[in-house]
């Protein structure tokens, strides 16, 4: 159980929600299953998997950046300050934070987990370089916030964000966004024999690895659970044929 501290619309259908009272905060790339407690909570029944945008350990707060895409997120967006919310998590494997220069590529709401990743990377390896590419269909969000924690920010509105990226680099590359974008990034990277990290999204029911709703195909023909084996995978694991 957690309490809502803030739940503000920051752009069309995009909200920032801060909650307090999580027992654990989680690491970059992990997510929580969020579910309102009051009101009609059996339609929809399931909790919503939302990745961690930021953590404030001093205040004990976790912040989520999320997009309203259906009934469940619509209800989340209607929650008010001091409303209680059910939280399960942190869940999933999260990003490996490497002692290396990094390139982050985010598309749309997929930029969400990259903020905390860049912040933690800066804290752990302050002398390393961070480049971030943010792609949006119509307009940018949170540009200043991302600029403040990265050394270099490249914005792409309406085009293909992956076209701006130099994949032939020694940097560690992390990608989160729509599946076609992540596949495009994987294809670019594979051409230069580079493996990259991708953070997948899928519909989930349990979020903890029990129900197999979110299974994804892997390159060796087996299946993995996005919620528990992921959501972060090497592109070579899930996108290479």
């Amino acid at each position: 159980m957690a309490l809502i501290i803030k739940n503000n619309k920051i752009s069309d259908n995009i909200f920032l929600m801060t909650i307090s009272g999580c027992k654990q905060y989680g690491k970059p790339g992990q997510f929580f299953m969020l579910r309102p407690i009051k009101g009609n909570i059996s339609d929809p029944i399931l909790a919503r998997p939302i990745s961690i945008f930021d953590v404030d350990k001093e205040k004990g707060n976790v912040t989520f950046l999320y997009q309203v895409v259906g009934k469940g997120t619509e209800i989340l967006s209607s929650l008010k300050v001091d409303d209680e919310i059910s939280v399960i998590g942190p869940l999933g494997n999260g990003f490996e934070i490497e002692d290396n220069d990094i390139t982050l590529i985010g598309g749309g709401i997929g930029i969400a987990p990259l903020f905390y990743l860049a912040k933690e990377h800066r804290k752990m390896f302050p002398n390393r370089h961070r480049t971030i590419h943010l792609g949006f269909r119509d307009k940018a969000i949170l540009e200043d916030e991302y600029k403040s924690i990265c050394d270099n920010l490249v914005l792409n509105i309406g085009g293909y964000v992956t076209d701006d990226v130099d994949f032939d680099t020694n940097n560690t590359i992390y990608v989160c966004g729509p599946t076609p974008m992540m596949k495009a990034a994987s294809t670019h990277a594979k051409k230069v024999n580079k493996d990259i990290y991708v953070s997948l999204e899928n519909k989930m029911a349990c979020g903890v690895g029990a129900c197999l709703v979110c299974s994804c195909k892997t390159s060796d023909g087996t299946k993995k659970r996005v919620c528990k084996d992921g959501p972060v995978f090497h592109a070579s694991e899930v996108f290479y044929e």
Partner: protein
Amino acid sequence: MSNINHLETDLMGIMLKNPVIAASGTFGFGSDYANIIDVSRLGGISGKGLTLNGSKGNDGQRVYETPSGILNSIGLENPGVRHFVEHEYEVMRRTGAAVIANLGGHIENDYLEGAKLLNKVDLDILELNISCPNVKNGGMSFGMIPETAAEITRKVKEVSRHKLLVKLSPNAYDIVSVAKACEDAGADGISLVNTFLGMAIDIDKKKAVFNNVYAGLSGPAIMPIALRMVHQVSKAVSIPVVGLGGISNYRDAIAFIMAGATAVQVGTMTFAVPETMINIIDGLEKYCIDNGLENISQIRGII
């Protein structure tokens, strides 16, 4: 709150510490929820449905939410019976809950070879799944009519050394006849219901949501129908009945017990609220105390 005798339940000669069991397909093999709830408190765990050689399950979307329910089309993704015997059984056993293996199949031989392999481990119960609606061949087709349900029950019973709980499909033409046929064929108990066949259509894409078109409906939406079927079957057979279908709190569980169930299984609501089964166990305990019951079985089948 922990006087265990209130809830201790004899299910087909197997003693459960309480009558609350995690439903197959909703709880993995017991370890996935171990960091979230106290799994050792559960009466039993029915593991993910197994097939002889394992399966990658269905492609495409696997879940779709409906008012008070979900449609699923997992398609029995599972690591196979051998993997279960070698790796998952011990994990399940360590949970402290009764161990129930759920066995499905596409053809008769899958069931028989699977059941033989499962003789290698000390299961508490073998749950025979003749009711999965999400695989193209087999599964539910065995459970649709009494004759095929009885035949597979009889043959599995012959080769298995375990107590046999046969899980029925609510999609059968006459579930009471199927239940009676399974009893006559040697089933030690009956569990019902598996999911109801349903469908969803994406009207914007102008196509079915699921690759298989049809999928299985579970959750509170189905509870009144499941309760009615459990009531009917309980009246018709003399072997124990395990009731499931949309149970979300202790009051639902008590309704199933009053309708004749010896134990209950909980599935979909665990996804929404992982503590659901723990809350039900606590609620049943309190109900017994408040109503002066020595054991929950005193209200079994009173309706």
